[in-house]
């Protein structure tokens, strides 16, 4: 497959605004045009070629080699293609994206997939705060698509999310699914404080007993077909979902009753009732 490889020349700590690294843009550009794409390095305008050795052209397949935790907004608003990041990467990765796929071998910083509308993001390491969240002031966060973080996630995962699926393989920070409007968040590790605070609808699935707010009410012990579908899907995505999770029972809490109260937190309760 055709691809454009970006090889980092030199590591830096100064933030780079790199929304120009986007498959939609690369698709029609020659190698030279890609090198000329504008990036902000701190408050100075630079060219992409100043940071990366570019190999390949006119492809919506982008491979980035090197550690770029200071590069922000990569894949912002992308609608197609692939970005494969072989190291760590900075904030706002895949924010507002509409389609395509992002794969990160390392860790990512905050605002991963913020307000994304479609497509999928896979992170093999950890993610920062506000995965799939709404930018401050927005009425809605993630509106579709899938984010899978194999490691840990920070605080406010899926804040104000409207639709889609977020999976945190490890531990999630405080306020998971805060103000959730709809959508599904699955946390395989421990969950921080106040999950689902202010949620209206939507689902948070936890496998370790969380500390719930008093505005969440216990309903029953249940087995839910839809959850089996989701867990099956995650198995197909090569996540380690034990058989006990599929066949097991879940405690269903509804909340946040300060809001609509039609959201749910499902807590795995073991294989037998």
């Amino acid at each position, binding site marked *: 497959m055709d691809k454009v490889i970006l090889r980092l020349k030199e590591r830096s700590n100064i933030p780079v605004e790199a929304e120009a690294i986007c498959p939609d843009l690369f698709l029609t550009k020659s190698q030279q045009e890609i090198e000329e794409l504008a990036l902000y390095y701190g408050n100075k305008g630079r060219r992409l070629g100043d940071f990366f050795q570019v190999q390949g052209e006119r492809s919506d397949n982008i491979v980035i080699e090197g550690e770029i935790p200071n590069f922000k907004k990569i894949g912002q608003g992308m609608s197609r293609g692939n970005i494969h990041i072989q190291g760590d990467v900075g904030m706002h990765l895949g924010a507002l994206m509409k389609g395509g796929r992002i794969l990160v071998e390392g860790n990512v910083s905050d605002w991963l997939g913020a307000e994304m509308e479609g497509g999928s993001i896979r992170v093999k390491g950890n993610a920062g705060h506000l995965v799939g969240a709404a*930018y*401050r*002031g*927005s*009425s809605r966060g993630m509106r579709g698509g899938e984010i899978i973080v194999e490691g840990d996630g920070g605080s406010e995962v899926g804040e104000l999310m409207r639709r889609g699926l977020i999976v945190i393989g490890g531990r999630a920070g405080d306020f998971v699914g805060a103000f959730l409007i709809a959508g599904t968040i699955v946390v395989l590790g421990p969950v921080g404080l106040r999950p689902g605070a202010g949620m209206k609808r939507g689902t948070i699935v936890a496998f370790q007993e969380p500390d719930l707010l008093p505005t969440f009410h216990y309903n029953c012990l249940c087995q839910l077909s839809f959850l089996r579908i989701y867990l099956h899907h995650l198995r197909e995505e090569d996540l380690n979902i034990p058989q006990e999770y599929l066949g097991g029972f879940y405690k269903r809490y509804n909340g946040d009753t300060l809001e609509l109260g039609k959201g749910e937190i499902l807590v795995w309760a073991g294989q037998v009732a």
Partner: protein
Amino acid sequence: MFRISGGEVYDPLHGINGEKRDIYVRDGKIVAPEDVDQKHLEVIDASGLVVMAGGVDIHSHIAGSKVNIGRKIRPEDHRRDPVPRSQVTRSGVGYTVGTTFVNAYRYARLGYTTIMEAAVPPLKARHTHEELMDTPLIDKGCLILMGNNNFILRHIGSGDYDKIRNFVSWLLHACKGYGIKAVNPGGIENWKWGKNVAGLDDLVMGYGVTPRQIITTLIRVNEELGLPHPLHLHCNNLGLPGNYQTTLETMKVAGQSRLHLTHLQFHSYGGESMRNLSSQAPVLAEYINEHENLSIDVGQIIFGEVTTMTADGPWQYTLYQLSHNKWANSDVEYETGAGIVPFLFKRDNPIHATQWAIGLELFLLIQDPWRVILTTDHPNAGPFFFYPQIIKLLMDKKYRDEMLASVHERASCTLLSQIDREYSLYEIAIITRAGPARRLGLRHKGHLGVGADADIAIYPKEVDAEWMFSNPRYVFKDGLLVVKDGQIVTDYMGRSLLVETAWEESIAEEIGKEFDRFYSISLENYPVELDYLPRYEVIPCR
């Protein structure tokens, strides 16, 4: 010292309708040809260009506490509209609730040079002036909210009229205000109890007075003090179906006295429910046509994002329930309140489309352009930088009909499609500068006669009025070139416009007692000192 040469001048105050005139400027004022030294005269070539006085906005919300609440609850509004700095200007953000500097730049870039901040709670006057200090280029004044003030309501109840006049006079002084504003008189006080008033004769809880009494009293005070601007009134029942009756009654309350009714579009509705909200603009326009004591500004709807903000707290709560959007409510102690709700006016919404048509009906059915003033009640009905679009709608019947066809068909239930009137440039000059200046009592603004402030906007003469009024070639403020070809070229601080009226010292003692008992700040910290303002100008009373 310069001469603007060969331009097509529109100066309705002097009856100049597009004739070629030279305009002479010295020391920030327009002067007679014999008052300049012709030898050392710079010449601005305005041939083929249209010359007007700087625009005057009679009603806008650009500074103060509720504007700031709007900024705080709408980071998304700013994120979409970043404004980088230039050599001359500061960076900032728009959109509907922009930063002070950005608002000022954008006004100047339309050729507007004087703005009235339309709703200042006395307690927040200091804050408002502080924001206005950061609003460069333009001159600005503050209309002070008094329609729900405890002191005034109480003394209307006790019938002590002199005390009220003294208090109002003192309050204008303390706030460094320009005029009296009343918003939903009595309704905001009742909102403190979770209620509203539904008509002019409802009781204000705890005071036993009525909106009718409040309006009558404030008109009387305003006229006795001889303030340059009449009472600036936001009527009861804003936004509600059938409210035109309240509006009509309110106009009758004024009798022969001067009265300015603001954002009349929001007060011109028929119907019994939101579902059948309709236009009663023709009825109100007819009444206004027959009563020269009345003036209005329109509050024209612009389709798109707005941030509604008004002292009318109960209405804002209703709007919050209608829109399910975010809502901030603010209570200003003994004086007033405010509510802020972001809103989206949609072309395909039957109510919004009707509101849009009603605004245009008011513009077109009120015959005397001197008494109908262009506003969007920024940022309530639309951001002010859409004024050129409104101008085009007024000047171009074809464009208006096209837009009418593109909005919800319910708008066609209004008279709009049957109105053929098209505004001339002369009339546009009236509704955007000469008219508001006259209605504000700003005798040195809104015209290009000798002695006027040299606030001058020069536009390219284009068929597309929207483009023309969005792109002034030159804008002068006090004779300084501040905008050239769409760019801000000078940093300059405009003046605060104030009035000075007299009051009896005895009133201060009584206010002091009130403050000791009920206010969260002491009287000493309340009045805004004159030397707090970087530049000011006292406008004489009548």
